[in-house]
């Protein structure tokens, strides 16, 4: 039964339908059941997946719209599997953050289906379908269920992403007209010798880059993100940062770099400059925020910057050895997973604070260490993981990325390290004003972590430690894919 990975997409859709038709009393339970099913299915796929063979596995291919070369073509390799697992992890985590209405639950499940689809589709038309399919529920979730300022944020989010998508679609039409295929693998084979000739290639390159850069987001296309993350309900913010932002990074790895290896080499200094700006400016902006959710949102930009730093460096570096590139690539993959986990956890904790206090300004709290030591303790673990403390998951990925990028672009790396420092400062300040100091009056009746919250927090934290102390089991998922992709790029 596991042979049909398309079922992965259908399970959440079925859940959404059940929610829509069935009017269940407790919609969250239904959502959890379907989450459990898809997580179980994802684990089965992991079991089935042979991590030692390169290339796509569990492939399904059916003609769809033959006249334009659109196919139903799905399959997974290490990267897809990693993101499928991440998605399966982030969604139940997000559902556990807060009670959501029936409609919101259904929309979340639709979004989950779209994410699965994006990560396993191997044909552009199919991929783009899912890519856009995730946009609508995200828009509605912000627009309907968001907090203050939701209309503005939702429209801004939609416009930014949609414009990016249109640019990408046009670019792909250009590719199709030249090469006559939408198939990722086929197109990647042309990449080496130049996908498109002449000046057109730069337009196409820019189109795809723009679409993905908005999605990630990369400085200076990031301004929709703080607004959207801030106003979205906690669970939605967790999904946005934990899974949705990975679509952009995934697109960079799957599309832009294989299709335009030569163009990236030429544009690399500019791209790296943007990335380093992301890495350095985002934590500075985070430092200036008084709203905790906004602060975490800005730090999210910084962490995704590390992924792109590693990726562009691999694509750009011609001198560095294969081993170095593989290490950096593993770092990028690991960072993708780590950021999903850690950023979601941070939003989760901010959500807990908001539930208890009703507000989430950094000055609304103080001295919580006295009232809620467990909450503070586990939250600090998430913060330390985010600022890259050795022993926790964030460090390994960042270390590998920095190591790889250092060999190729030492100066960019040296500047990017400053970003680490700013992140640390931001977190330390947040910790200080939340946890220590005199007990703020409003926090006097704070309950500490409740049992159901502990059940969520403890496994997630254990996973952070597990990855930080023994990342080998993560490497095993994508090792072969990394080796294969690195060979492709150099």
């Amino acid at each position: 039964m596991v042979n049909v990975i398309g079922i992965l997409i259908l399970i959440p859709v079925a859940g959404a339908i059940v929610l829509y038709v069935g009017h269940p009393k407790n919609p969250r339970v239904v959502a959890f059941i379907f989450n459990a099913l898809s997580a179980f299915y994802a684990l089965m796929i992991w079991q089935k997946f042979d991590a030692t063979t390169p290339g796509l596995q569990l492939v399904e291919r059916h003609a769809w719209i033959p006249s334009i070369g659109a196919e139903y073509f799905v399959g997974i390799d290490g990267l897809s599997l990693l993101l499928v697992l991440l998605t399966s992890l982030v969604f139940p985590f997000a559902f556990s953050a807060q009670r959501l209405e029936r409609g919101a639950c259904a929309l979340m499940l639709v979004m989950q289906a779209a994410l699965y689809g994006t990560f396993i589709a191997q044909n552009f038309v199919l991929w783009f379908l899912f890519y856009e399919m995730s946009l609508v529920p995200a828009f509605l979730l912000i627009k309907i269920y968001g907090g203050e300022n939701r209309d503005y944020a939702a429209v801004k989010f939609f416009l930014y992403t949609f414009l990016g998508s249109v640019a990408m679609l046009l670019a792909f039409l250009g590719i199709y007209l030249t090469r006559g295929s939408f198939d990722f693998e086929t197109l990647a084979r042309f990449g080496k010798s130049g996908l498109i000739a002449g000046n057109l290639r730069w337009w196409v390159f820019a189109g795809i880059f723009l679409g993905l850069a908005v999605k990630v987001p990369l400085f200076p296309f990031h301004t929709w993100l703080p607004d959207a993350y801030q106003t979205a309900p906690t669970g939605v913010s967790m999904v946005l940062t934990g899974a949705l932002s990975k679509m952009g990074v995934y697109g960079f790895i799957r599309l832009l770099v294989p299709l335009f290896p030569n163009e990236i080499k030429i544009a690399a200094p500019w791209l790296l400059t943007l990335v380093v700006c992301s890495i350095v400016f985002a934590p500075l902006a985070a430092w200036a925020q008084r709203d905790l959710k906004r602060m975490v949102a800005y730090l999210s930009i910084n962490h995704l910057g590390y992924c792109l730093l590693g990726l562009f460096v691999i694509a750009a570096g011609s001198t560095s050895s294969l081993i170095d590139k593989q290490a950096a690539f593993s770092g990028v993959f690991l960072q993708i997973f780590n950021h999903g986990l850690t950023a979601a956890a941070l939003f989760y904790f901010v959500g807990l604070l908001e539930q208890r206090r009703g507000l989430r300004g950094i000055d609304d709290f103080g001295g919580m260490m006295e009232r809620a030591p467990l909450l503070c303790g586990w939250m600090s673990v998430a913060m330390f993981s985010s600022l890259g403390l050795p022993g926790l998951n964030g460090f390994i990925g960042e270390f590998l990325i920095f190591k790889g990028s250092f060999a190729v672009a030492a100066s960019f790396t040296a500047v990017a390290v400053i970003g680490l420092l700013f992140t640390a400062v931001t977190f330390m300040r947040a910790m200080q004003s939340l946890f220590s100091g005199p007990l703020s009056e409003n926090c006097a009746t704070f309950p500490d972590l409740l049992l159901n919250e502990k059940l969520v927090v403890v496994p997630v934290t254990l996973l952070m430690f597990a990855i930080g102390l023994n990342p080998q089991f993560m490497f095993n998922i994508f090792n072969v894919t990394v080796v294969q992709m690195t060979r492709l790029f150099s």
Partner: protein
Amino acid sequence: MIAWTIYLTLGGAVVLFFLPRAFVRWIALATTVSGFAIGLATFCRPDVDFAHFTTIVRVPWIPALGMNYQLALDGISLTLILVTGLAAICAVLFSWDVNERAKEFFFWLLMVVGGSYGVFLSADLFLLFLFYELVIVPKYFLIAIFGSTNKEYGAMKLTLYSFFGGALVFLGIIAIYVSGGSFDLSQLSQFQFSSQLQGWVFPILFLGFAVLAGIWPLHTWAPTGHVAAPTAGSMLLAGIVMKLGAYAALRVAMNLLPQGFQMWRNSFAVFAVIGIVYAAAVALRQQDLKFVIGYSSVSHMGFVLLGLATANVFGVSGAVLQMFSHGVIGALLFAVAGTMIYRRTHTRDLDALAAMNLRRALPFAAFTFVVASAASMGIPGFSGFAAEITILIGAWKTYPLAVWIVGAGMVLVAAFTLRALKRSFFDVDLTATSASAPEMEPITIPEKIGASLLMVATLAVGLYPRILLDRIQPAVEAMRFLK
């Protein structure tokens, strides 16, 4: 066997949480004592090779990246293991009265100690960095939760400085790994790094580590951090944590990048000398007893850095000996100021203390403080003298001028130490007020045991420094920058 210092300490920290509160301090004591006992047992074993950084454990950890869980030992590490064990035992003894949130307190305390053991034993650069950063977090909580004066500010400042140093070190480690291709310290110490790379990586690494050793002008976290910390926290900071920086600077920066070291050592010697004199001068003007001691720590650590910068056997061996010596003396001074005095008088202001006739009220404290001050001033017979004279002999060969300046600095050290001693214990006219000694809780048994342990240690090493130097010197001679 020595590896068990790490496992026992970290294991003890975890076990604490599952036991009733009444046992907590006993478990902490048992853990620290067994850590020290293991160190001592290794110290006494005749068959251990102290001259070379001998691997004792090696387990593949993340093979894809060449990271191993690898521990090694030589005379330098062992010396620091010993001072760690000693300071840890006394820190527990001087925290015997901690009742509020005792589990957490001892948990963080043992984490600091366990992480430090890890740094001193790591033979893998990555592992070393992991342990090094691991110490920062518990230190922050120890100060921010349990500290006193201005604790949040102090904890934050200390942590930010540590992270700043950590970021520099991170960059340096990446540079080393990228060109050296390994994390294994003994392999790397055979590797010839290009002199251009050494020229810029060395200052980054050395400075990054030296932040934690309190190098001037990046020392300002030290006094505030020491003052804010609870007694045990100050003892660990002065006794252990500052040594982490100096040790790592020696083991990593100097040993791996000898050419860079030769290029930069003059500048760092200048920093060290300024640090010694400047910190002593500042200490002379402090009103808060803990600030006096905090600045004296910076001054003493200046000696360590000066010793390292001399780049000869005497200077460097002296620096290692000074790390031991200052660990013991610093811990002792903070124990007196933090627990014996402050817990009973609730003030550390020298003027207020002067009016209290503490000599009569707390005779044992007075005695301990006299011994500690004498050791700190470098009176012959105490470890401070043995260490500083070795450093100065080393410095005489390379920096004769520095010796003169430092000599003047030592006078300042004596001056502020005597001032603190006099104001805190001996300022009251003996005949006039001898009757009016204030009622105070007498010095407790754990305090007496802890203080005696430290006093014995400083005396033993002061009277017979060869006991340590015989094990330090061969290890120093084996280091690359001397060849």
